[in-house]
């Protein structure tokens, strides 16, 4: 059942130009940064004589590409997640799902899985692009995998938040703006509390939990953070939809 809904969501993304345009534009951005990264690598490394200044090509280019990817996703995910529920509200198609023999959890998970599947394609393409360095250099696959997992966890969290925001309103644009503002606030949270490195608020920052992944470090604390983040917002979405049924 979850997959029937996910499949429908995926189909909806690909029958509209939206999915293709987003995919193409993102790939263009990632490709450009990849190229620039490779270019700069030669420039900088030719100047770096001492061994401790030298950096692996994977890390150098990867830092470039995954850094921009996490930033660009901040804009892309709200655009993709905005219509998930708000559009169903607007077109009054929710009764179709509500009167089918589905639980709300299945509906919400289906929509979430649908969006995350689309984003997974993007993450995989970026991973494939990075792996293409393997053609002429020895690269650090562990680094790419860690970054891919980190990016994937982060976009999944973005999606969960976007899905929740989408359930709050009838207007997709409002949902997109809400999602963007919320994500942006969460990302830069640690800037506000930079003066106090031990502040609890720092733990809530999304970027802070992505950072270990981007160094190639898989930490269970970060996994826990992202999983809890996703679970929280999916639960809130279910609650929001249940309120529809109760309050009407």
């Amino acid at each position: 059942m979850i997959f029937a809904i996910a499949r429908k969501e995926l189909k909806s993304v690909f029958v509209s130009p939206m999915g293709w345009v987003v995919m193409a534009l993102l790939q263009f951005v990632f490709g450009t940064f990849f190229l620039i990264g490779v270019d700069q690598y030669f420039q900088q490394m030719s100047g770096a004589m001492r061994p401790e200044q030298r950096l692996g090509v994977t890390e150098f280019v990867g830092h470039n590409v995954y850094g921009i990817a996490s930033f660009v996703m901040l804009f892309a995910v709200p655009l993709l997640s905005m219509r998930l529920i708000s559009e169903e509200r607007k077109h009054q198609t929710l009764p179709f799902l509500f009167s089918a023999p589905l639980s709300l959890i299945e509906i919400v998970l289906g929509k979430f899985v649908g969006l995350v599947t689309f984003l997974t394609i993007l993450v995989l393409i970026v991973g494939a692009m990075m792996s293409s360095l393997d053609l002429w250099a020895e690269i650090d696959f562990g680094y790419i995998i860690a970054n891919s997992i980190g990016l994937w966890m982060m976009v999944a969290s973005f999606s969960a938040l976007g899905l929740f925001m989408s359930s709050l309103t009838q207007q997709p644009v409002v949902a997109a703006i809400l999602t963007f503002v919320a994500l942006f606030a969460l990302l830069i949270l640690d800037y506000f509390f930079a003066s106090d490195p031990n502040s609890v608020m720092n733990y809530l920052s999304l970027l802070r939990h992505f950072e270990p992944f981007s160094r190639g470090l898989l930490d269970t604390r970060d996994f826990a953070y992202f999983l809890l983040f996703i679970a929280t917002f999916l639960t809130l979405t279910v609650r929001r939809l249940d309120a529809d049924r109760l309050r009407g």
Partner: protein
Amino acid sequence: MDDLITVEASALTRAYGGRAVVNEVNFNLNKGEVLGFLGPNGAGKSTTMKMLTGNLAPTSGTVKICGIDMIENPKEAKALIGYLPEQPPLYKELTVDEFLALAARLHRVSSGHIRKAVQHAKERCGLTEMSKRLIDHLSKGYQQRVGIAQAIIHNPMVVILDEPTIGLDPIQIRDIRALIKELGGEHSVILSTHILPEVEMVCDHVQIIHKGELVFNGPIDVLRQLRQGSRLLLGLRNAPAPEELLKVAGVENVELLPNGLMRVRHTEGDSPAERLAQAAAANQWGLYQINPDQTSLEEVFVQLTYQEPAALAA
């Protein structure tokens, strides 16, 4: 099996901020019956239907579909229902085939049977020509048909249609009515409408709801009897004084109508039509018209909705 109860609503109540929109509605529906749900705008028809289909939680009361409680086992109960809301819920970016296949899959039609179910539903709703068209590009009438197809695709025990003929042209309305009648054979159908002739044409049972209360609940025949009061409409070219007419046995009251006709009220069950005709012939009143005076269904409806609900609640 024939008198199997498919829908059982008991003391169904829904309140918004303390005001009851639907108040203590009780009814049963048997297998194979078509139930017409009548009421003026805002009477609570749609709200009741939302509660029957599990789209809205009742404030109190229960809904049972074939004995399965909608609140305790929503999944099992919903699997037995096909629902077409007021606004047909269609994903307009999909084609008719894609959408119906999705509906079948979500209603747990096994994957081997999906094609057959889609084909069958399309045939019943006259959609075979439209298979590959985007729903967005279909006319309102065809979209409505897709809505109905979506509701019957999993061959549910109960089909609930909220104003299915609204916005259709007369030919489409006729087709859809025929379809509803056909559905009534094997499924139970609940149909809401405010078009009265429609109810007369397709329904076996009628319920009239007004301000959230059930004011009438009974077979369509009872409603028909209400229509035919004990009155005759009489047209006389050389009309005598009303006193002359009162002499005919059975006539109780005569009323002159502005259009030159006379309305004769007679004792119930004993129509003096024959005697009036004889008297007219004997006295050369110039009889040119005599027929039972039927109150329009509208009048019955107005009577029912505006009198004290208690008087007629059966």
